[in-house]
């Protein structure tokens, strides 16, 4: 229940259990349901050459890291209250050459 409602009314999130009595927005993962998120990541720097926009690759080889964190108090730098649940790493490449 990531965004509980303060006293079950209005647009404010409840701070603690003593204030929570509803839901403003539910973003939890529900049982036996799959949530899909897609990310498009630009891999370029942009410049103008002869009045044309040119997008140059920042590199050709990349490492993609995807981490799933449990952050009950919302902070990664809180060692007692932050746990990385899953990590995925993959090397991806842009082909060199061609047009």
């Amino acid at each position, binding site marked *: *229940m990531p965004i509980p409602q303060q006293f079950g009314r209005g647009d404010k999130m409840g701070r603690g259990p003593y204030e929570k009595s509803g839901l403003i927005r539910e973003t939890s993962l529900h*049982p036996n349901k799959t949530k899909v998120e897609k990310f498009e990541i630009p891999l370029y720097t942009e410049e103008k050459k002869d009045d044309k926009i040119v997008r140059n690759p920042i590199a050709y080889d990349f490492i993609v890291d995807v981490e799933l964190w449990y952050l009950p108090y919302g902070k990664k730098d809180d060692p007692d209250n932050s746990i990385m649940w899953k990590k995925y790493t993959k090397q991806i490449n842009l082909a060199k050459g061609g047009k």
Partner: protein
Amino acid sequence: MKFFKILLIMLFIVLPLTLFAKSQDKPKKAKTIAELVKMYDSSSCKDCHSDIYEEWKKSLHARSIFGPEHVGRTAATFKTTIELGLKDWQASGVKKPEDVRVKHLMICTKCHLPQLEEAEDSVAQEIVKHIYKFVDEGDENSAAILQQLNINCVVCHNRNAIIHKWTEGYPQKGVVYGTKDGDHPDSTYKKMKKSSVMKESILCGQCHGLGPNFEFDNPSQCATLYGSYLWSYVSEGGTKTCQQCHIQESKLGHNMQSYRSKELYEKAVDMKVDAYAYLWRDVVTPTPAAHVKVELTNKAGHVIPDG
């Protein structure tokens, strides 16, 4: 005349005796933390059930009003509830920590220490004093005292072991409720009785609840798991119980864990990721980009996270 004499005897001797007996039946409330700890003492359980006792000691149930070991996050939240909640609410009757009574703490202790119902306001006062001493001054003695108050064997296997009390009767003194009937070799808990709910999710649902606790003058909401278990897991065909995943399949036994435990979180969520780089043409501009697709599947019997 003889009739009146008998009536007088009845009034002066029998009636006071009856009233005295009635007051003896009424369970005495704890006046101090030490008395409440003694009323719910489960230390003798470890003589025969040492493995289970050691498992339980590692769990958050063993420090239910203190919170994670050394951190004491739950104790800190009690203080926040007093400072930012109770003191701020105009009709709560709390202007300073010394005004906090059992009824005020019950919005938290309904689950974190249900046996507080069997204590006088002096115990609430003592708890509050130790919460402030630990949170403000880091007092280790207060931390140790707060950790004596917990959800232990007696709470689940006696006090909370019968839910439908009009149907099955009230939990009896000296009985440990579990999976068998018979004698129990203990000087305090001499009998075992089979509980109809010990292996059912509803046992856990008493605290890991449905949502706002509307029975309070000012409802609180902490745990919502049993609600999501019923309406989002069972409703979709789920058949496992809380105990199956958290006690048996985790192999953690009475060290019932959740989001902080590798045994649980590794099984709870499946994460699939695919990623690749490509060259997109934004009209005429070649544009290097990466596509990352993340799929998360919750395999637990409730929403993740709850709260």
